[in-house]
């Protein structure tokens, strides 16, 4: 396959993981069409992440639009193969800028809270299981969304990227900009908090 590439003029190109036989290559002048074909099908995924990161539907709309515009402007820096984490990284930057704009003080508090939690909350000691409490009843989607939304930012982000947006630990680490080990411990903490909230919702003892 690379033998074919060798005869191409040195033009800006984007290599796409499109078909089983190998890769397809497109020149820069088709960048807009390519960007649309790759990025627009992910609109629901990007919107979902924006909703969880920002909380409000109107803010999510603005952030998603800004994300797509930025992504298109920087499309030449995209080198594949997975476009989803790349878009998410941009979206996350947009959302963080939005938070910074809204209130720097509030953002600092938010992070301070999260750090306290990370340092002091025990992961497992308080759990006393009986077979009855071991089973989680299936809550409806709206309730679960609410429980996820109530998690502190960095844990919410980890669990949404993993469970709802379907990213691997490596991809989450790249999007968030932390080591894989941190992703793992944040996920553990996120699930711990989520399970506690879940049981409280059902009136079960934690």
């Amino acid at each position, binding site marked *: 396959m690379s033998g074919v590439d060798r005869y191409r003029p040195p033009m800006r190109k984007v290599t796409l993981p499109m078909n*089983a036989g190998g890769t397809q290559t497109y020149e820069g002048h088709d960048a807009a069409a390519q960007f649309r074909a790759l990025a627009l099908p992910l609109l629901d995924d990007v919107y979902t992440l924006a909703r969880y990161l920002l909380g409000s539907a109107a803010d999510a709309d603005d952030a998603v639009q800004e994300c797509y515009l930025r992504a298109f402007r920087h499309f030449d820096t995209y080198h594949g193969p997975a476009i989803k984490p790349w878009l998410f990284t941009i979206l996350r930057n947009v959302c963080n800028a939005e938070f910074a704009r809204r209130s720097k003080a509030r953002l600092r508090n938010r992070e301070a809270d999260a750090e306290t939690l990370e340092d002091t909350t025990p992961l497992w000691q308080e759990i006393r299981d009986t077979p009855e409490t071991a089973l989680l009843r*299936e809550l*409806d989607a709206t309730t679960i969304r609410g429980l996820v939304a109530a998690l502190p930012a960095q844990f919410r982000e980890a669990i949404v990227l993993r469970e709802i947006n379907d990213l691997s630990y490596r991809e989450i680490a790249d999007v968030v900009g932390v080591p894989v080990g941190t992703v793992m411990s944040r996920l553990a903490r996120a699930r711990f908090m989520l399970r506690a909230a879940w049981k409280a919702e059902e009136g079960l003892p934690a």
Partner: protein
Amino acid sequence: MTCTETQILLHALLDGELDAGHARDVEAHIAACLGCASQLRQYRALHDVMSVVDLGFTAPLSLRRRVDAALPSGRPAPAPSRRLVLRGFAMGSMASAAAAATVMFAIVRSDQDQRMFSEVISAHLRSLQAEHLTDVETSDQHTVKPWFNGKIDVAPPVVDLTAQGFTLLGGRLDYIDGAGVAAIVYRRRRHVINLFVAPGAGAEDRGAKIEPVQGFNIRRWTEQGLNFWAVSDINAGELQEFGQKFEAALRPGSGS
């Protein structure tokens, strides 16, 4: 391995992110530790519920239009150009001949399997586009299985994997390679899994093989004289999990 380590690593285990060595260590600890075993059960239940329930949001149409209007319109993408290959020949060098030979070899090698893969992908895409995902729509395996009677010459096994995180949506009659096949439809989060079942004509049991094709994953295996293709856009790890759970449920004495 200590409980503290296990409490973290069990998440990687249920996310399918542990290498074989660590997975064995964690499983060994869990087999011997009631507390950690109970933790894993609970977190697995949480993980499975979150996989089944659709927690995503759908972008409103107004946003879709806004984004569409804000982006420059592009010309439709060109088909992968045969001219590039021809240009390769025109250069006439040894290298291009070698490249062409490689291409030819790849094409010749794309045997029956590859052709079936693209047929399976086409059927999967058809099912998503035409809003004709299921002919019989029910999550009851005992309704889906008899529905196929007399429609095709296989009696496909239908198992409900809802408890394992894969919701049974129903069944459909489909055509692959000109022959009628059973399509059993599952959902995980917002991803559809089509499981195609066709008679294997005396085929021997064949171990599962997962391949990415056109951005989808296909898991193919042969069992009890039937050919199976599971196709979806979920990641390979989850499709593997689906296949394993399906196979496990078919085995006698599995209790489901």
